[in-house]
Each structure stands twice: as structure tokens, then as C-alpha cells.
């Protein structure tokens, strides 16, 4: 009897040891959910610890030699300066820090040194999604760079201003952000985007030194690809939701709901003839396409008690031809 009980206890000990070692074994890979997550660019290179490392992680300069036309088009789009914008975006980032999390009681941020990646994802989710692949030190460095850039401008220190401007301009949505990082939306269904692969429409060898394989992205020509950053409404997954672009929401619930069937790519890349220079009204082509308008003028003679007034009635009809509301905001 006694020996049997002992054996039982011994066995259950072995069993629990076994469970323990399993629990310890899993976290050492660093990734608990998702097969192939360890093959992404971020996992292969390890988190960026400086802004320069983050820029290098998605460095797309090798692409420009062979895809010069795409580079030329892309560099005219705001995707090429998605943090700097026209200067207004970077300036609004600063306001977002000051009037946002630095001002809020429960954010945990009192000075720029307290900022973590999570605080910035409320904007970076769309303006610089690869920031998620960096450490909190990089978040602090980004905030410091935006502050120093604005301060240099106020103090008329053009050398420092241009140095920081240069850095901010390199933080963007480039070839690898779209053709690798964002090229797969449903990662458990289609797999995680892998380092060394460019995602387009075809499969096979790709002559880049590092990105030697070509694979199809299942959503590159679908609206949801752009929708990943063009907004549905409040970003409710955040601890403190932000809201900026809502064009994808309008596309779904207003354009498609009214019978629209074109994708973002059809209008912005193909019909516009602008290719990778995806544009808004700032491009004449897009402004011309945006609305149809009809003006009807009807003159008449209006009579008051004793006086006679010439009068004109004007009817204007505006039809929005875009795939979402105008303006977005």
C-alpha cells in the first residue's frame, strides 16, 4: 500500500515537472501565438534600439535601383513622409504629446523620458506602424527629435532643424512597409510576412541581394490593404482611443452601401494614372475627378409692395465621385 502511494506521488511529480518544463520552453522562443512569427523582419533582426536602427530595419534603398519608376512616384506621395507630412503632421505629433498623454493624469507620462512605444501607437499605428518593432528607448528618441526639431525652428537654428528634419523624413511608409510588413492582414490564415520576401502578385525568384523571394500578397489589390491605416473611426483597441482618418469606414458604410464597387487601388493607382504617387485633391487629376457639379441659374423679377427687384436664383448640385466622404477627417 505504502509503496504504491509513493509511486503515485513520484509519478505526479514527474508529470508536474514535465508541465513545468513545457511552460518554460515556450516563452524562450519569445512568441506564443502564431506560427512563423519568428520569421518576420522584426523577429529576425531583433527590436530596434535607436531611430537609426529602425530606419535601417526597413531600409528600402536597394529597391530604388531596379524599381526606379515606382520610387520616383512614391517619393512624391505623403507616404514618403508620413511622420513629417507637410511639417503639419510632425507639429501635430508635438501637440499630441503636450496636450495629450503628457497632460493626462493616468497616462504615466510626466516628461518625455517617460514615453513608451505604447503611448505613440495612437498615431504610429498608421503613420509609422513599424514603431511597434522598436524598444521604448526609440519612442523617447522620437519624442526628443520632434521637440528638438521644433525648438531649433523657433530659435532659427537651421543646421539643427535640418538635421532633425532629415531624420523625421526617413521615418515613413516605404516599399518594405507595404510589400512586406503590411502585405498580409490575416496572419493566422495566410502566414506572417517573412524576412527576405517581397509580397506582390507573383511567386518565384526575386533578384534583390537580401529579399530573394517573391510571393503573392492575398490583399495587395483589395481595399482592406489600405484600410489597415485609413481608419474606421475611433481606434478602440487602444487604452486611450485616438481618431484621425476615417476614410475606410466611409468607404465601407457609405460608398459600398450606396452601390460603389471600386477598390481604393482602382481609383488611386490605376484610373488616376498616378501609380505609387497616391494622391488627394492636392493633385489636379484627383481634384478634377472628385465631384460633378451642375449650376443652374434662373433670373426673375421680384416685386415688393411698390418696388421691382431683379433677382437671380442659383441651384448647385454636387455629386461626390470618390470612394468615401469628402473631406475625410
Amino acid at each position: 500500500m505504502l509503496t504504491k502511494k509513493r509511486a503515485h506521488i513520484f509519478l505526479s511529480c514527474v508529470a508536474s515537472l514535465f508541465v513545468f518544463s513545457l511552460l518554460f520552453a515556450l516563452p524562450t522562443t519569445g512568441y506564443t501565438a502564431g506560427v512563423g512569427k519568428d520569421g518576420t523582419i522584426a523577429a529576425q533582426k531583433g527590436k530596434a534600439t535607436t531611430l537609426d536602427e529602425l530606419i535601417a530595419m526597413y531600409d528600402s534603398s536597394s529597391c530604388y535601383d531596379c524599381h526606379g519608376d515606382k520610387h520616383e512616384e512614391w517619393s512624391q506621395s505623403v507616404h514618403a513622409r508620413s511622420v513629417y507630412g507637410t511639417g503639419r503632421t510632425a507639429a501635430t505629433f508635438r501637440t499630441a504629446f503636450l496636450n495629450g498623454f503628457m497632460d493626462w493624469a493616468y497616462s504615466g507620462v510626466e516628461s518625455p523620458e517617460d514615453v513608451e512605444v505604447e503611448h505613440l501607437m495612437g498615431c504610429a499605428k498608421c503613420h509609422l506602424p513599424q514603431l511597434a518593432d522598436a524598444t521604448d528607448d526609440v519612442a523617447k528618441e522620437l519624442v526628443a527629435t520632434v521637440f528638438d526639431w521644433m525648438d531649433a525652428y523657433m530659435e532659427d537654428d537651421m543646421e539643427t532643424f535640418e538635421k532633425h528634419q532629415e531624420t523625421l523624413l526617413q521615418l515613413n511608409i516605404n516599399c518594405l512597409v507595404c510589400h512586406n510588413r503590411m502585405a498580409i492582414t490575416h496572419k493566422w490564415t495566410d502566414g506572417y510576412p517573412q524576412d527576405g520576401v517581397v509580397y506582390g502578385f507573383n511567386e518565384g525568384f526575386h533578384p534583390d541581394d537580401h529579399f530573394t523571394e517573391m510571393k503573392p500578397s492575398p490583399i495587395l489589390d483589395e481595399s482592406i490593404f489600405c484600410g489597415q491605416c485609413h481608419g474606421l473611426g475611433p481606434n478602440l483597441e487602444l487604452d486611450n482611443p485616438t481618431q484621425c482618418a476615417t476614410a475606410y469606414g466611409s468607404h465601407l458604410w457609405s460608398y459600398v452601401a450606396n452601390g460603389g464597387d471600386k477598390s481604393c487601388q482602382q481609383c488611386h493607382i490605376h484610373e488616376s494614372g498616378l501609380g505609387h504617387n497616391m494622391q488627394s485633391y492636392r493633385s489636379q487629376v484627383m481634384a478634377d475627378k472628385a465631384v460633378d457639379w451642375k449650376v443652374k441659374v434662373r433670373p426673375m423679377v421680384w416685386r415688393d409692395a411698390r418696388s421691382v427687384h431683379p433677382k437671380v436664383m442659383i441651384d448647385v448640385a454636387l455629386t461626390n465621385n470618390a470612394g468615401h466622404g469628402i473631406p475625410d477627417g
Partner: protein
Amino acid sequence: MPVPEKFGRDDIMGRGPYEKSGMVADTALHPLKTAKEHFEITLDAAEDGDERTLDLKVQLWYLPYGTMDSDPFLWKEYTETVTIKL
């Protein structure tokens, strides 16, 4: 335009994307919909003559930042000389 709500409550407009959540109203031009605007211009009472001529100009402006002082774009322009016989 979409008028975002400040922190998703009350009827106060939010300005920065860090405080915008939800919408108070949305007066944008919606896709595949036709919006109609009607204007009436009544001129001063006619004193003499039996005809008045008016050079009419109708313009559609896109104001990215809400005012004519900051980066406005002219989208459409319509001109017509209108003659009103009295």
C-alpha cells in the same frame, strides 16, 4: 465635413486626433450622393432702364484647414452673364 467628438462624449467638437473619438455630425459630401444648394440674390430695386446685367461667378473651394487664409484650393468655377428684363 465629419465633425469629430471630443473624447466621445457630449456635443463638443474634438480638434487633435489624440482627443477625437466619435462624431457630433457629418456634413461631408457622401459618396455617390448628390448634395443640393440653393442661393437667392436679390438686387437693389430697379430705378430706370428695362434691363439689368449681372456677371455671375459661382466657385467651389476646398478648405483643408477650414479658412481661406490657410492653403485653400479652388475646385470648380462657373461663370455666366445674366440678363434680367424688367
